[in-house]
């Protein structure tokens, strides 16, 4: 099955006042139709840049320094503007973190849905789309404005806008981060149901490793602009092989048991001024060896997943099989 999203060797930097900052430093990603992929990372990891790059929706000071992005087999980086717009319209759907800033405050909801559907969208089609995202009274929502909606309802509208034309790929960037935690499950269930019904692929970006592991088949962990570990989510979450993944699980509140301690990762995430010649995590890594500060790790296949670490296959990490995160 050919990939609906194919990213290879992507390198993206931002031109800032004081020089370049590399946000994505060589990323490969293939997403097949119907798949759910979760990308986890903290700020500076490059996950949002990667997600937005797929639709070429980056800030004006972003520079594509290398690599290729293909969506539905069209090259995003080199296709003409009209084709790019068409790909965005028909193949991609984006769901953002803050629904209130994703919706136009001056247009009625129905009108925004109509614009998303395109062509001639009558009230019936508008209400049908709003119904698909589980809004109980689509007619009333369509007649109203964004500020009249609660956070959860507004996010449903944003999802409605994203799926209006049944795109092949849904990209959700922290879709529940600004919502009440109690409806996090409901919104994620909705995305899963839509995926099932339309056969679309879902790319879910988040800082919440546990949440992504629950909801996605495949899990990618990003650090310093690279994918440091990727594989089936259960495997990666319960038996992480990259030191960063392990450290992240031990540091995140929620994974500890009562009376347990969080183990912070010493140091701070890096700001890359150039493509990293070595391992970006080396200075914070508990297993770091001299080689880590000299040579950029290649991606190895270990235990049914990919890890970008020199020592993924070594005794050091295999010996720690027991330190899986509690379920």
């Amino acid at each position: 099955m050919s990939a609906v999203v194919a990213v290879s060797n992507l390198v993206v930097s931002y031109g800032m006042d004081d020089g370049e900052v590399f946000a994505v430093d060589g990323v490969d990603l293939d997403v097949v139709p119907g798949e759910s992929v979760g990308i986890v990372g903290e700020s500076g990891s490059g996950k949002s840049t990667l997600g937005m790059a797929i639709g070429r929706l980056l800030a004006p000071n972003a520079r594509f320094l290398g690599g290729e992005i293909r969506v539905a087999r069209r090259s995003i980086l080199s296709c003409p503007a009209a084709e790019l717009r068409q790909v965005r319209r028909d193949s991609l759907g984006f769901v953002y973190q803050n629904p209130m800033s994703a919706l136009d405050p001056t247009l009625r909801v129905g009108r925004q849905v109509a614009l998303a559907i395109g062509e001639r969208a009558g009230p019936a089609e508008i209400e049908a789309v709003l119904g698909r995202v589980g809004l109980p009274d689509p007619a009333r929502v369509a007649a109203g404005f964004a500020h009249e909606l609660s956070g959860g309802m507004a996010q449903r509208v944003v999802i409605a806008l994203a799926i209006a034309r049944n795109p092949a790929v849904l990209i959700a960037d922290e879709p529940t981060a600004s919502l009440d935690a109690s409806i996090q499950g409901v919104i994620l269930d909705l995305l899963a149901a839509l995926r099932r019904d339309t056969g679309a692929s879902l790319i879910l970006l988040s800082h919440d490793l546990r949440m992504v592991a629950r909801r996605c088949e495949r899990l990618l962990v990003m650090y310093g602009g690279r994918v440091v570990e990727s594989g089936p989510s259960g495997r990666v979450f319960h038996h992480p092989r990259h030191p960063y993944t392990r450290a992240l699980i031990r540091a995140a509140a929620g994974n500890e048991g009562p009376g347990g301690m969080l183990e912070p990762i010493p140091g701070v995430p890096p700001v890359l001024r150039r493509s990293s010649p070595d391992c970006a995590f080396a200075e914070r890594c508990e297993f770091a060896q001299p080689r880590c500060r000299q040579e950029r790790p290649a991606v190895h296949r270990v235990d049914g997943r990919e890890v970008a670490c020199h020592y993924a296959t070594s005794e050091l990490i295999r010996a720690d099989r027991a330190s899986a995160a509690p379920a």
Partner: protein
Amino acid sequence: MSPRGSPVLAGALRFDRLGLFGLVLLVVLLFLGAAGPFLPLGDPNEIGAGPRLGPPSLAFPIGNDELGRNVLPRVVEGIGVTFLLSSMAVAITAVIGTLLGMAAGYLRGFADGFIARVADVLFAFPALLFGLLASAVLGPGNISAIVVISTATLPLFIRVVRSVTLSFTEREFVLAAVVSGASTWRVLWVHLLPNVLGAAIVQLTYALSIGMLIESGLSFLGLGVQPPHASLGSLLRLGSVYLTVSPWLVLVPGLVLALAIMSVNLLGDAIRNMLEPLRGRPLT
């Protein structure tokens, strides 16, 4: 305004070229205005120094006015007077406006309501009409010009200061100060004022350029600077009669006035850009 380290230094590095041009122009004009009397340009008051309405020549680079006076030193004097009057008025606006604006923004309630209404009333008064009123009461001249400029620029300034103060009143560090027992005075002086200053300075530069316009307008009507003193506005008035015969009497003061206002506005824009950089930050 976004917070950044070492505010002055970081900001200075962002000063753009237009702003620099404005600054240089302003400095040149201010120098002329201040040093004018001491430069060997000639006597601005000497009647009959040259032919009446004499055209520009080597001895009289901008020619002579209807009384034969050398126009060059008069224009230089005009720059000084225009700037001086406007600056004094804007200084008064700055002090009163900052006090009232911050009081309105921080104390809210009755004080805010009262000050806002007063500002609205002042806002409604057309400056030149007010100028007539002021001259009727105070007599035409420098004092009434200062009063008019000050009252004309006060309302907008109060609104800007009030608005910025409001935006900072709910900031976490202000609340933290209140919780730790800081007095109202301390909060206003140590926490609010330094953060309001930036926007206030920008607004003051615009007030200065408006002030110069008002001053010129008043002097043009004969309500501002009185003869034999010259301001750019009064020179415009005296020269406008002879526009078809000796256009340089109007063109030169007019051009200088335009340059003065432009330089102040460019400077204001540059300072504003320094404080609110337009480039967004990337997401990752």
